[in-house]
């Protein structure tokens, strides 16, 4: 049986995934190489949320799930450093080094929003628990 507690739990899990993506973005602000060691400046990642059909009560209340993690597609920041070992060798960007273009302000505000959403869902869980306990008081 799907209850309000399950729906709130799905939201907690989704917000935590979001916070993980944000901390990954902030940690990798200056990362020049990707996981395979190739020269590729880090691009910001963010999760896409979707209504979860599997967590659904009979009256239509539904939970949330992470559909996929998107990688943002923005132009990297270019800095002129001709003596840097990873500088671009040919083309019109010769002598420039490509740095990640991560907007710190946006990441921090998103982190705030994820935290508040997490706390709000915990608040809802407290209310649901309270309802259950009050019901038991009828018997006592």
């Amino acid at each position: 049986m799907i209850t309000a507690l399950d729906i709130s739990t799905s939201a907690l899990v989704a917000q935590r995934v979001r916070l993980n993506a944000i901390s990954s973005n902030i940690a990798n602000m200056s990362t020049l190489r990707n996981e395979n060691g190739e020269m590729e400046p880090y691009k910001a990642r963010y999760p896409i949320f979707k209504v979860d059909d599997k967590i659904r009560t009979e009256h239509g209340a539904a939970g949330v799930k992470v559909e996929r993690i998107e990688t943002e597609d923005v132009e990297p920041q270019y800095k002129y450093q001709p003596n840097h070992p990873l500088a671009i060798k040919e083309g019109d960007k010769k002598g420039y080094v490509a740095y990640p273009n991560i907007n710190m302000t946006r990441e921090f505000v998103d982190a705030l929003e994820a935290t508040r959403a997490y706390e709000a869902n915990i608040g809802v869980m407290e209310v649901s628990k309270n309802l259950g306990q009050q019901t038991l008081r009828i018997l006592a």
Partner: protein
Amino acid sequence: MFPTIFDQSTVPVLEQMIGFAQARHEVLAGNIANFDTPGYKVRDLSVDAFQSRLQEAIEARNEQHMEVSPGLLKKEPVQEMQKVRETFKNIEFHDGSDISIEHQVTELTKNQFMHNLAISIMTSQFQLLQTAISERV
């Protein structure tokens, strides 16, 4: 005498519910304790198996009141409850995907609610018996 007083009420069924809730609590608490253990697979007790066995035990008990034709063996209620108790040991292992600590905490909360509900109902059953014995409301 004692078996007949309680067999007619819901006390044996509630007793099984409480036992199951306590066994499940231990399994779920073990999950949280082993949260950081490498290679640990999350475990749970099957609520569905417990509920279907309990349903069978209740139906078997209700059949006791029907007439037994000669040659038909009557099912002992103790045997049915024994089968219900076996589901307390049916540990299932999850495959490790999509299991988070929030899920464990939620399952613990729901389990706790079922446990407290069964205890409250059992308490009011005994209070009914008490009222009947003392003849005072």
